[in-house]
């Protein structure tokens, strides 16, 4: 082939590289990164985006160039050159994808490791004793299991998901038990006894979510944290992350869970540590107030029928007069 195009090829290569690098940095496809781990994932995505852009333009460029350069000229019914292959070229384009996936693979592994992805396995091996929390399960009903769940120790707990990153301590700053059910999330803070429909987390402190489900499989997803974990009935999974940016972000169910799957969402509110502590305090007050209410509630089985019905009769506006009238009409009939 005539190549005055050494220079053209070089320039095209440089332009392609620059465009790819620019796209990798400025694609603007990802939402704000609100956790420390999110930045790692973004770096990985930007790299993959750079490489993909380059490959994409090479393939499309060859196709578009061929359409114009190699289209059949009218009246030309001959065949093209009988090139059956070219071994060095084929080795080259076997090697290029191999090297690219090696780079992406090693980079992914690094990111995964520093996010803590390898931790759940390293910490506790694969125990067959999976925490079965399903109501109605004969195995789950044993006292032994229940006490274990009340105070889970890191060595006994099954944890699939994303765990502690290597540079973090084994014990997180804040633990939250997350339960998915059709079609809501419940967040329980075992340290403070608070239960909430929204997830409140402080910045700069490592949070560990113990995720489970009551009915079907759900998936806990916060796009701004780049974290997702299925909530699987019958086992507990974990997610660890460190919130970074103050704000309110959606918590989305990402696994089809029934008719209103699309409506199963709530919020995660990332607060400064002070705001977070204030929120916990206020919730504890509300909770204790609720407890007082509950203590005042009457046990209906300890009451006679009259005592039990009295307040309802009052609400319905039944007085002794109406009862008298009832009696009167009763007598008239006979």
């Amino acid at each position, binding site marked *: *082939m005539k190549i005055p195009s050494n220079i053209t090829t070089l320039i095209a290569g440089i332009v392609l590289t620059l465009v790819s690098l620019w796209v990798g940095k400025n694609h603007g*496809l*990802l939402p704000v990164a609100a956790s420390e781990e999110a930045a790692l*994932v973004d770096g*990985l*995505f930007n790299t*993959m985006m750079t490489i993909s852009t380059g490959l*994409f333009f090479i*393939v*499309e460029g*060859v196709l578009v160039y*061929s359409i114009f350069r190699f*289209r*059949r000229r009218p009246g*030309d019914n*001959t*065949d*093209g*050159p*009988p*090139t*059956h292959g*070219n071994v060095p*070229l*084929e080795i080259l*384009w*076997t090697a290029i*994808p191999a090297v690219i*996936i090696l780079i*992406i*693979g090693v980079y*992914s*592994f690094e990111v*995964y490791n520093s996010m803590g*992805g390898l931790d*759940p396995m390293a910490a506790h091996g694969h125990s067959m004793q999976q925490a079965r929390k*399903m109501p109605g*399960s004969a195995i789950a009903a044993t006292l032994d299991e229940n006490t274990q769940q009340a105070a889970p120790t890191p060595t006994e707990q099954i944890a*699939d*998901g994303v765990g502690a990153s290597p540079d973090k301590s084994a014990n997180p700053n804040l633990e939250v038990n997350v339960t998915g059910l059709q079609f809501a999330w419940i967040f329980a803070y075992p340290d403070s006894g608070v239960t909430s429909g929204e997830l409140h987390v402080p910045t700069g402190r490592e949070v560990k979510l113990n995720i489970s489900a009551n009915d*079907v*499989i759900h*998936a806990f*997803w916060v*796009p701004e944290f780049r974290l*997702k974990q*299925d909530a*699987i*009935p*019958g*086992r507990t*999974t974990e997610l660890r992350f460190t919130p970074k940016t103050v704000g309110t972000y959606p918590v*989305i*169910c*990402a*696994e089809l869970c*029934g*008719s209103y*799957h*699309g409506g199963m969402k709530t919020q995660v509110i990332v607060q400064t540590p002070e705001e977070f502590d204030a929120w916990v305090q206020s919730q504890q007050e509300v909770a204790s107030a609720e407890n007082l209410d509950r203590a005042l509630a009457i046990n209906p089985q300890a009451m006679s029928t009259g005592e039990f019905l009295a307040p309802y009769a009052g609400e319905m506006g039944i007085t002794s007069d109406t009862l008298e009238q009832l009696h009167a009409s009763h007598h008239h009939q006979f």
Partner: protein
Amino acid sequence: MEPADLAAREHEESGTNWRKFFGFSTDHKVIGIQYLVTSFFFYLIGGALASAVRTELATPDADFVSPDLYNSLFTIHATVMIFLWIVPAATGGFGNYLIPLMIGARDMAFPRLNAVAFWMIPPAGILLMSSFFVGAAGSGWTSYPPLSIINGSKAGEFIWILSVLLLGTSSILGAVNFFVTILKMRIPGMGLNQMPLFCWAMLAASALILIGTPVLAGALILLSFDLIAGTAFFNPTGGGDPVVYQHMFWFYSHPAVYIMILPVFGMISEIIPAHARKPIFGYRAIAYSSLAISFLGLIVWAHHMFTSGTPAWLRMFFMIATMIIAVPTGIKVFSWLATIWGGKLRLNSAMIFGMGFISMFVVGGLSGIMVASVPFDIHVHDTYFIVAHLHYVLFGGSVFGLYGALYHWFPKMTGRMMNETWGKVHFALTFIGFNMCFLPMHKLGLEGMPRRVAMYDPKFTALNVVCTVGSYILAVSTIPFLVNAAWSWLRGPKAPDNPWQALTLEWMTSSPPPVENFYKDPVLASGPYDYGMVNALVIRQKMMKGKEATTERKTPSGIPLNQLKASDLLGGSSSIVQSASDAEVEAQTLQDEDPMLSGGPNSVLRAKPDPEEAVNPDDRQDS
């Protein structure tokens, strides 16, 4: 140039005989067309369901259909597109039609089994559609328990299981047939490395079907027990494990992706060299990379489960294995590009769909490498990014390839040419509609829109409207194709035997080919892709002369060969083997006297070598 009278006569015969397409025929060509027409019909139904899904998603609220019905719509859409369109069209349709022709056989190894495999599809499809009357399955095509056990109508879910089991069985029966046919029925002289690449691809896909589909059947049977018998294989309330189902399901359903794309890779490897007028670049690399993809496809299934509680080390294994698939796939893409490079491209409808396939599939391939990476997949799993990725692979890949193949082999199948202008209109509409519909979904997924939702955050409305408009363009794009195909089949200009001057064996017979495919047993005189080589044309002309000389040949029972029907050979007691007087036939003892049941090198359905032109020296007689 080409003798058109033969084709015309043949067409008249099939014209009076259109009823054979509605009956139980054992002719692989009839079965192939039955597969294609049936699956295209279901493609239209699946497309209608998709349009309903996109209409619902035009607004953020669930206002077009009820949320339950919406779940059924996308569940049945996916099931139809996978099990009733791409798999039967790519393997059943083109596989059946092309494999015996390409390897020079007179039919498939097991013709009756072949017909049985096809006739399982219409009942299964009708069953699936009828489930809308009892509340169709709505737990996604993955049908994960425990949702699928408790969600909606049990009848609908059970019908779904039943019809997928039927379709899976049909697919297994077809795969057995392809496997035996390709390995045992090639004309002498055609070694594995002389096969057209489509045969390699079908070999790889059939292996996947045979290994994977029984596992899916196992998973679905256990699921049906959980559903109707109250067992707890996958139900955690009884101590079952829902993740086990996911392993069993994806052990088939990831290879299913390759079952859908490998045959299309094969078709592209046929279409590109024929219209670029160049030999395929790196035949062996493409052939063996199909096998590599087939093998690797079996050990990557858990990449669908990175967020479902898969142990960490396992995630790393499946990440690496998945990424390695990029290497054989990359080899294929680069080889196709090198085939195009420097050729003399005939940019007809088949070719532009073929090139469209490469340009769109590469997007799906690149996003595929991205989602193989565990940390990134944790973010995008079960989002619209995945929806975009899978449609770039299965629509931009498989469906573009299938359209290309339809344009490429339509003249062979029907004896008529399609209209090129409308073909290009069809391509333009499909290309624009497809990209409008699926490109914005990448961004939607990255920003936080999960898949399988009827209602979504109003901030995503604008992009969703673009997607919906794109889907309508896509729906409209099928109209030019349908009209063009129907009109061309009835009234199109007569097709010559070899309109594309291609070199594979299916072009060496008339269009459409007669029953039993060849007037004279074909010989392999040139490689399948010897474009631009001096002797290829000479040999082709020689073969054409040979064909004309033998059109008047008759079967031993006296029926002219070019008017032969399958029933003449296969029905009744007089098999051609018994009545043949040639001594050489005596030597070819069949394993079984009934040609229906016989296979292997001695099958009557297998072609005999021509001593003058045979490529294999053993079959050549120098005298």
